[in-house]
């Protein structure tokens, strides 16, 4: 389909170039001028209602500002709380809650040097990477088999995987806990690395199935005729074309693992094996004492890696959501 489109678009481009060049010599300057002015006072409708400034402010800028404010305010709150001295934290009468006087790094110092926070960060990173890698490999095979091998009942398997994704973790953790105990991996990183794929694999499989579907079937048939085996088709043709899909599945998996809470809470007991979301909440809240400063510092630092990851791959991520393979 894409090739049809591009094939038909090239002559039209040539046509456009021709009309351009016919204007260029300026033999008929009057016509050229007319063309120019009509270009300026284009009375066509479409998006031009956005042109006047006051309208733009109200229809575009204002909603955008509200949106951005709603999204970013929690981060701002986290950031200022993390550097507020303790005496300012709840004293709204004497200090503005929206501003900091005499910022301090005490909370961050406490977090990094007097708690096991660095361990949590490392654990989260380690578990997220391992779980993501396992899930991606499994999902590639699953998605390829369901989407392209078309075995009997492949549709039902696809549906089954999707349904598995719908089982909430708060129910699934009970049988999983049993398995984790029996396998003897309770309170270790392995407990999380092996349980996270229960929700990552269905999700990534579903995403990759959609992506594989967008790759023309002829490419695979052509590779078959060219003498490639199924394995070679997967490695040399399909995967190189699925990189955007793999990246977005990877980012999603990584984020989901990074933020996972229930399994990390139930399967990990010792302080140095905890992940960031669980650690921050269980170790920095002592009965009814909330260490707000360190809590917020922990949350802020904990969210940075995901932000960085997203910002690097945002292009791939968007293209995999919107598009197919362009030939």
């Amino acid at each position, binding site marked *: 389909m894409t090739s*049809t489109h591009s094939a038909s678009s090239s002559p039209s481009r040539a046509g456009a170039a021709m009309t351009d060049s016919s204007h260029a010599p300026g033999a008929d300057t009057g016509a050229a001028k007319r063309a120019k002015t009509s270009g300026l006072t284009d009375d066509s409708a479409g998006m031009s209602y956005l042109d006047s400034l006051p309208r733009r402010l109200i229809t575009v800028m204002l909603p955008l500002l509200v949106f951005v404010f709603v999204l970013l305010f929690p981060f701002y709150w986290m950031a200022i709380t993390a550097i507020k001295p303790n005496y300012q934290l709840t004293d709204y009468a004497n200090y503005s809650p929206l501003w900091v006087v005499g910022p301090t790094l005490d909370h961050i110092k406490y977090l990094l040097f007097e708690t096991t926070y660095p361990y949590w960060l490392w654990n989260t990173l380690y578990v997220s990477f391992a779980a993501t890698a396992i899930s991606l490999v499994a999902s590639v095979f699953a998605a390829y088999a369901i989407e392209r091998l078309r075995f009997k009942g492949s549709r039902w398997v696809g549906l089954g995987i999707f349904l598995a994704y719908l089982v909430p973790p708060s129910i699934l953790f009970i049988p999983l806990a049993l398995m984790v105990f029996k396998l003897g991996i309770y309170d270790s990183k392995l407990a999380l690395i092996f349980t996270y794929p229960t929700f990552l694999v269905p999700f990534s499989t579903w995403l990759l199935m959609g992506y594989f579907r967008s790759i023309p079937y002829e490419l695979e048939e052509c590779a078959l*005729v060219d003498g490639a085996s199924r394995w070679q088709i997967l490695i040399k043709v399909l995967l190189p074309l699925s990189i955007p899909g793999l990246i977005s599945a990877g980012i999603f998996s990584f984020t989901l693992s990074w933020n996972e809470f229930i399994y990390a809470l139930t399967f990990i007991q010792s302080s140095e094996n905890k992940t960031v979301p669980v650690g921050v909440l269980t170790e920095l809240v002592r009965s009814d004492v909330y260490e707000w400063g360190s809590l917020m510092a922990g949350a802020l630092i904990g969210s940075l890696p995901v932000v960085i990851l997203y910002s690097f791959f945002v292009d791939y991520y968007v293209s995999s959501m919107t598009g197919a393979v362009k030939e």
Partner: protein
Amino acid sequence: MATVDIRAVTKAYGSTPVIHGVDIDIHDGEFVVLVGPSGCGKSTLLRMIAGLENISGGEIRIGNRVVNEVPPKERDIAMVFQNYALYPHMTVGANMGFSLKLRKAPKAEIDARVNRAAGILGLSHLLDRFPRQLSGGQRQRVAMGRAIVRDPQVFLFDEPLSNLDAKLRVQMRTEIKELHQRLKTTTVYVTHDQIEAMTMADKIVVMHDGVVEQIGAPLDLYDQPANQFVAGFIGSPSMNFIKGKVQVNGTAAFVTPSGAKFPLDRVPEGAVGKDAIYGLRPEHVRIDPQGVPVEIVVVEPTGSEILAIVRVGEQEIACLFRERLSLAPGETIHISPQPGMTHLFDAVSGQRL
């Protein structure tokens, strides 16, 4: 190079048969075109030769080997797909060398063969580009280059020109024909365009609803269509079919319900007095003062020729004149068929009489 023998091949999807027992002999080095309207099973047949579809019954031989159960990669064929199916993430050179690389050919040999194929097709300066940077015609050539590089026993083309614009299509048609004359590799070419079939083929196979209607050289099909379907499919503008009866009243003639009499070249046995279909190609109609009077309905001049639609009774006939005639709608002219250029078909079975 090899022969391809197709013997009583059938294909069914579930319980729906799509190809009903097809027999085709393809000789070594022959250019065979499978042609027919969409849904006639020609692409399915090609894909069965390629090994991309299972064969439900019968047998296909490439060379002397039955390939029914042989996977595509061991059939020693190369296929050009309708949308080219170039690997978007590989350069032109890598695309062309991919099959050799899979066979683990030495790099020097791959380069030599890719360069040779690129030279033949005029792609040498494009080897480092990616498919998305090429025009439609160039992509088409790369797809052919990929087939040439392999030096296979059989080339398979699946409507390779249908994504090109009309002008390029004519040019590529010539190029493919030249290529075949040069390489002399057995070729099976699928198209729905009868002009492509006529211009390129050594042998045309006309298919319709999963059945072979006729096999023959292009001009044989044009001159001696076996049935009404082939007669209507081959040739452009397509043949006129006039309903009427064969009558012998002194001289034998074909008489339409409105009483117009067309001359017959010969009177087939047992056709006298029966309903029949009179086939007359538009280009075989000529002005003849002694001919059948007809009324002009529409005149379409194209410069080199004039297409006129005329009416005989309730039936319309297309006529193609190479002369610059001044014709106007509503006028009456007299026409007659060129002698020896008429066809007669059975009104029921559509078979040639």
